[in-house]
């Protein structure tokens, strides 16, 4: 179950090739992303995308949010996920010292262009253990049909 989520399903060599292709696609020669909506590596929240025969599954790793405050919108084929992480420092106390502040804070937005066969009427979002899962239905026509051989 987790394998499909976190590891590419092929063997190690294929995996490296896929990774290399992904990097080549997303990085131009000067090391900057070329897709118009791509963001620098390590941006918050990290996103994984998978596909089943019936849905496109988008996972955003965004811990510490209030489910009601997460905005998920689909407009003109673009899926946008936005929200805000509020500072967690014990409020305003001058006697509190901060030794580490690595966790990203503030407003964030990530956008993804959905494939042409996405059915934007069938979008579901759930938030659990800090992971937002957006499930986008795919149109029937895109699902493989078996053709009988006579």
């Amino acid at each position, binding site marked *: 179950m987790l394998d499909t*989520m*976190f590891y590419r*399903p092929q063997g190690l060599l294929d995996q490296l090739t896929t990774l290399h292709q992904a990097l080549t696609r997303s990085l131009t020669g000067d090391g900057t992303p070329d897709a118009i909506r791509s963001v620098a590596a390590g941006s918050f929240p990290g996103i994984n995308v998978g596909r089943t025969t019936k849905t496109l599954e988008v996972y955003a790793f965004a811990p510490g949010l209030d489910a009601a405050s997460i905005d998920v919108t689909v407009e003109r084929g673009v899926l946008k996920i936005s929200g805000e992480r509020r500072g967690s420092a014990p409020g305003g106390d001058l006697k509190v010292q901060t030794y580490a502040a690595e966790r990203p804070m503030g407003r964030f937005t990530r956008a993804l262009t959905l494939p042409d066969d996405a059915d934007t009427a069938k979008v579901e979002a759930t938030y659990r253990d800090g992971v937002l899962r957006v499930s986008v239905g795919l149109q029937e026509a895109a699902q493989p049909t078996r053709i009988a051989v006579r």
Partner: protein
Amino acid sequence: MSNTDLATAAPDRSNPTRPQDARMESSERSQRAVAPAVDIFEDAGGITLLADMPGVSRENLDVRLHGDSLAIEGQASIATAEDMRALWAEVSVPCFRRTFTLSRELDAGRIEANIKDGVLSLRIPKQAHAQAKKISVRAG
């Protein structure tokens, strides 16, 4: 995480065979892990540590104390469909692990841990006798 792992984290340089042992142990580790991002605050009563561990539920969280080493480890587990194939993965390691060294004035026996929405929060109180005392400065 076993006690041996904690020992590996701080290799003993006095023993020349140690690095090799450490390599063997780390290759035996079942899984790679990433260090979760943390915030650490200190107030008069103790230290608060927050760690981002998305996908980790209470059952898959392990907070362990060995001597003055505090290790946090969590497995992310996310429900996925059987027939899903990955198209894109920014998060590729489903395991978080990080170790901290506590100082003596902290009361390791009273650590409280809590995880909510993928954020681990640890409260490490100071020993009662270690809480700050104001020292008055007399004019000489």
